């Protein structure tokens, strides 16, 4: 066991690692390749970034992406924090029923929910657009945020809050000065994850944006399907940078501060246990 199996699985692991990074590296390399046909490496250039940054379509879509990410994150956090407060005093049965509602939002394929929302909005005569995208993102983001924040609440006792109340703090003051500070790392992680999920989402944004509103991933999908121009690689590399940085920040906080999100994301060994 100590000699034979590790060599085989070690080789597989090495190959997997190379395969995992190859596609990402090609996008980054292509984004700085001078050759407009992307067939040969003809030299380094930032031209495609220049093109992308001066594309008014990219600008408008970036604004939409940021708006959708911020709005859906704020709403999801509000839903998740209230759900976390509720679950502290919920009966076991109510909590189990609530969990089914939470996990089914994560488990069901996004296509189904997004098409359902699409049909519902059309039925009610509500136009598609930014708010429809926000609602679509809230469905899954609030579920992830609820899981993270409830996990954090489960590790917190109530003694500090009781002490604050005994010392005469009003319930609102207890919430603001005691509960929220204890919750802050979890809220921060949930928020960062929600931002990056929203920023990276394709399906809900595609179906719910309608004909005039699109986000960066939807723009990328359209560009990839219709005609590949080198600009795609530059936009893609930029998009990747934003999601990776938000994710990495969430990861860093999880490693440094207890949040209860570790198991879900597998950040580090201690968190996974």
């Amino acid at each position: 066991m100590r000699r034979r199996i590790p060599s085989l699985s070690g080789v597989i692991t090495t190959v997997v690692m190379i395969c995992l990074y190859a596609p990402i590296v090609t996008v980054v390399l292509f984004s700085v390749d001078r050759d407009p046909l992307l067939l040969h490496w003809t030299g380094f250039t930032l031209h495609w970034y220049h093109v992308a940054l001066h594309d008014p379509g990219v600008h408008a879509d970036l604004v939409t992406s940021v708006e959708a990410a911020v709005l859906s994150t704020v709403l999801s956090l509000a839903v998740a924090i209230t759900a976390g407060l509720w679950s502290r005093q919920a009966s076991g049965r109510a909590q189990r029923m609530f969990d089914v509602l939470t996990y089914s939002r994560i488990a069901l394929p996004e296509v189904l929910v997004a098409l359902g929302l699409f049909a519902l909005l059309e039925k009610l005569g509500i136009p598609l657009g930014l708010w429809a995208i926000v609602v679509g993102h809230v469905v899954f983001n609030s579920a992830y945020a609820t899981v993270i924040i409830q996990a954090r609440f489960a590790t917190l006792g109530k003694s500090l809050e009781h002490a604050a109340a005994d010392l005469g703090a009003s319930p609102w003051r207890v919430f603001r000065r005691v509960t929220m500070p204890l919750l802050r790392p979890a809220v921060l992680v949930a928020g960062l994850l929600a931002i990056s999920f929203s920023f990276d989402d394709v399906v809900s944004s595609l179906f719910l944006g309608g004909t005039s509103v699109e986000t960066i991933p939807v723009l990328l999908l359209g560009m990839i399907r219709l005609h590949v121009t080198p600009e795609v690689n530059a936009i893609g590399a930029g998009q990747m940078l934003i999601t990776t940085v938000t994710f990495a920040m969430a990861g860093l906080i999880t490693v440094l501060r207890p949040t209860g999100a570790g198991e879900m994301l597998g950040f580090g060994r201690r968190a996974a246990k």
Partner: protein
Amino acid sequence: MQRLSVWITRVLHRPVSALAERGLLLPSVVSAGLFFLLPLGLLLLYSFGSVNLLNYQVYFGWTFSNYTGILRSIYLGVMLRSLALSLGATLACLLIGFPVAHTIARARGRRQVVLLVMIMIPFWTSFIVRTYGIYNVISYKGPLDRLLNALGLLHGQLQSLLFQPAGIAIGIVYSYLPLMVLPIYVALERIEPNVLAAAADLGARPRRVLWRVVVPLAAPGIVAGCMLVGIPAAGEYTIPAILGGNKTLMYGNVVSDQFLALGNYPFGSAIAMTLTGLLLGVLLWLRSRAAKAEARTAR
């Protein structure tokens, strides 16, 4: 009547804080109800309705013709092939993911952390950009094409991957591999080294230890990994949209085409509900299996 009055008095005398605590549930219930349950409920209703394909007017009704229509339609083959494709990709993910999880679980200290982070980093980068990266790698005259040609393994062009089921399977395995590796790693990490030593001391060969001790003990992780990969894979839209061209469709694309391109909401809803039912069935079956397995190990 008396019961009602008792109930009313009880509600009126309930402390304010209890009501407030219940009110905390409101945002979750309202958002999940309006944005999740109601849309799915509408799809369920539509799936029993009918459509006038001349003016795209949808009528509610109680007909099973949409469901029976699935069996007769050209989509049945597409849907079955797409489910087989997701199943195959999930198994491929398991075959590749298990050795990787095994290597990570056996590594120690800093090396283990580095390996875990390396598996996770691609997952943290953008999903659509990663898929586009695969498109780059496996496309005609792309890096893989040239590498294989340079090595003499391929004569001519690499035509069999992009816009084919194999390309989609590669995309699914690539995108979801971390979701397979992590739960298996967690399960392997929990195995007591003494158990393995005991099996070896009792004369089990390494291969036997692997199949009779390691794999059964890692079963919960394997099941969790297959769920985390298989369920999203079955409803995948983006990967087939990019890597399948317009040739190879998957379940998610068939459903959305009915809504967005053909305007046949009832038929699309019936296809969507069939997938929902199928996935819920798989989830419940796996959950009951997991509960049984847990009961067995507890004993």
